[in-house]
């Protein structure tokens, strides 16, 4: 009978692979592919070492975007400040300009009017960039999920690497979240970029429907807009 039982380790491996596939979108990991690497083969020694070094670099030092939205931003400030001192991890330099930041912590509720602006700020950051979702509002809308104006989580708009739950999460939790993100980056994993349900589009490109027709007089064809289909939201 014992022969029929699948050995436990391989099941674990399956789970692990499934997790990796789910995270990476399956197949080979070609996010760091370069012409040089293609010329030299799949995993040449020097470039592997170099990749590992770059991952260590990106995981060890991070500039945060100075980005406050709601309640969680206070706990975020406490995380930067005296007692918790996120800078110990090399992640405590808040930069006001998105051009110079690596990590955006999203500390609060995203509402319909803010989502396009947040998307724009995210787009302004240079690659490689990482996103930490802080608090239940940016995970799912939190206590305000039923609201007519509340986007059900930041992941509807931009890709997210780490979720830190809580309302608001304690500074310790955020420190843990950032440390986890650093581990993830050092290990060479980061979330795949997928198409989000809410994107910035040109108004002229939208499908003509009743709503678009009614707004047509007010909005310029070239203006960027974000269209919310609330009924389809989770």
């Amino acid at each position, binding site marked *: 009978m014992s022969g029929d039982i699948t050995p436990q380790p391989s099941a674990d491996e399956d789970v692990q692979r499934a997790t990796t596939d789910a995270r990476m979108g399956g197949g080979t990991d070609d996010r760091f592919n370069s012409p040089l690497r293609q010329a030299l083969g799949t995993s040449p020694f020097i470039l592997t070492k170099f990749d590992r070094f770059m991952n260590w670099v990106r995981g060890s030092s991070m500039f945060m975007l100075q980005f406050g939205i*709601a309640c969680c931003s206070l706990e975020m400030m*406490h995380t930067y400040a005296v*007692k918790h001192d996120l800078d110990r991890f090399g992640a405590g330099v808040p930069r006001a300009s998105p051009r110079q930041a690596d990590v955006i912590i999203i500390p609060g509720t995203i509402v319909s009017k803010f989502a*396009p602006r947040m998307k724009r700020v995210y787009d302004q950051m240079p690659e490689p960039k990482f996103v930490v979702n802080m608090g239940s509002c940016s995970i799912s809308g939190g206590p*305000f999920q039923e609201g007519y104006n509340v986007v059900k989580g930041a992941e509807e708009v931009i890709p997210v690497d780490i979720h830190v739950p809580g309302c*608001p999460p304690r500074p310790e939790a955020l420190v843990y979240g950032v440390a986890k993100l650093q581990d993830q980056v050092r290990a060479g994993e980061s979330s795949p970029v997928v198409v989000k349900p809410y994107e910035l589009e040109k108004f002229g490109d939208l499908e003509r429907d009743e709503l678009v027709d009614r707004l047509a007089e007010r909005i310029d064809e070239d203006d960027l807009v974000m269209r*919310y289909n609330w009924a389809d939201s989770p």
Partner: protein
Amino acid sequence: MSVTEPLTDTETGELDYDAIFEILGDHIIDRESHVHTEAAVVRPDEVQSTLRILREDAGFDHLSCVVSQEYRDRFESVYYLKTYDDPTQEFGVVVPTSRDEPKSQTATGVYETAGWHEREAYDLVGIEYEGHPDLRRILLPESWMGHPLGLDYDQDRPQIVEYREHENPLEGHVEEGETMFINIGPHHPATHGVLHLRVVLDGEQVADLDPDLGYLHRCEEQCCQSGTYRHQIMPYPDRWDYASAGILNEWAYARTAENLADLDVPEYAQILRTMSAELCRICSHMLALGTFCLDIYGDFTAIFMYAMRDRERVQNILEELTGQRMMFNYFRLGGVVWDIPEPRQEFFDLVWDFLDELPAAIDEYHDLITTNEVFQTRTVNTGILEPDVAKQYGCTGPVARASGIDYDLRRDDPYGYYEELDWEVITEDGCDNYSRLLVRMQEVEESAKIIEQCIELLEEWPEDEREIQSNVPRTLKPDPDTETYRAVEGAKGELGIYIRSDGTDKPARFKIRSPCYHNLSVLPEIAEGEYVADMIASLGSLDIILGEVDR
């Protein structure tokens, strides 16, 4: 004030409503009685004349709140008036309009503060105010379809939100010189959250300023309207003014609901409420101090960090008491959720340690900030807010008190245990950014005094009389069509709640009168003509919390 005297009953000192109705004469079509005051029903085209009489002849110089709501048969705007001298003198003006054509005269000519109130009413409920100088949506995007607090609003309809680079509103209107339009916010290090200021600069000076709100409009009123009185609403107030002033906000709801359902609060619980609320006030003022200095100093430097350090200490105390660092959820209708944690002495020691070290910390702040000459050149005589303007815009709290308006609901409209304690209302006459900072710093000291007295009382309170909760029915169902508006002194000023019940266990209309909203509405007045840097400093000194502005 001489004009108010004939309206006050000489024996009881209470407002003589009959006298007011007499003054108004023909304007009234009906009388209404709300739980906290009497109200006159007037026609929608006589709003301004009625309010002007009330303002000029009856002395109501403070438009405290404007509530708008939709009934099955009509729309209604309610204007709640108060006086800055004695906020217990209240009066309501009810303006019903037809459902087919919801148009009502604006009150902006009489009270400037009505401007933003009515924009909000237009935005969320859909009443149009005729004669309003600037009737645009304020919280929701311009392109929004429908009015979400109306009765027939379908929440599942798709919406489109535009993202446009705004045009310079002054282009072509300025005779000389060239102006530059600049968006400050919604993502900007100095807007304290997600405020968007549309600024037109003339060189370095602000020529025109238009605050654009709604980047944190989380539908708090809708959320509260869909929660039950007893338990489901209380968590939301914590998230209005989230600068750890949660308990002060909870008190606003608790006071209104207790007034509505006629509930008592045991004395012991009142002391606990007073103590915890004042701890919150210290926490909130520390943040105001830290971020204001952040605006002036420019980096996350010493003052900011020290303020955070002191906040951390208060938060530890509050965490011991309530179990949470920020979102306390500590009050219940008719009391508080739990007593001081055992062993009590440890908690008292924690508070005593904090209180003992607070004077030294405040001295340090004075050393670093207020006595610094560079700081003084930056803040003294900048961002002037004249008392008249402050009253017109409905400013309250430290902002009003720094303009010499002696208005503090803790003393003037007493609640909790404040009446029994010995403390002062702080006012300053400077009207500038510096005074606003000074008021906050001195209020921290006053709060410490209040906490000290509360702790002394709590230490000696007999063990068998520690009643933290009065008897409250499991489900609260106030009588249909009961209306009340009650306010408390929040960290930023007069935080009022209006509730109308419809006989169920959920409110039919829940309206928040946010002090930050009105303090912010005065920003164009104080910042236009100033330098950008002073505009930023003034914004910091108004101490807005976007969660409370946008709700």
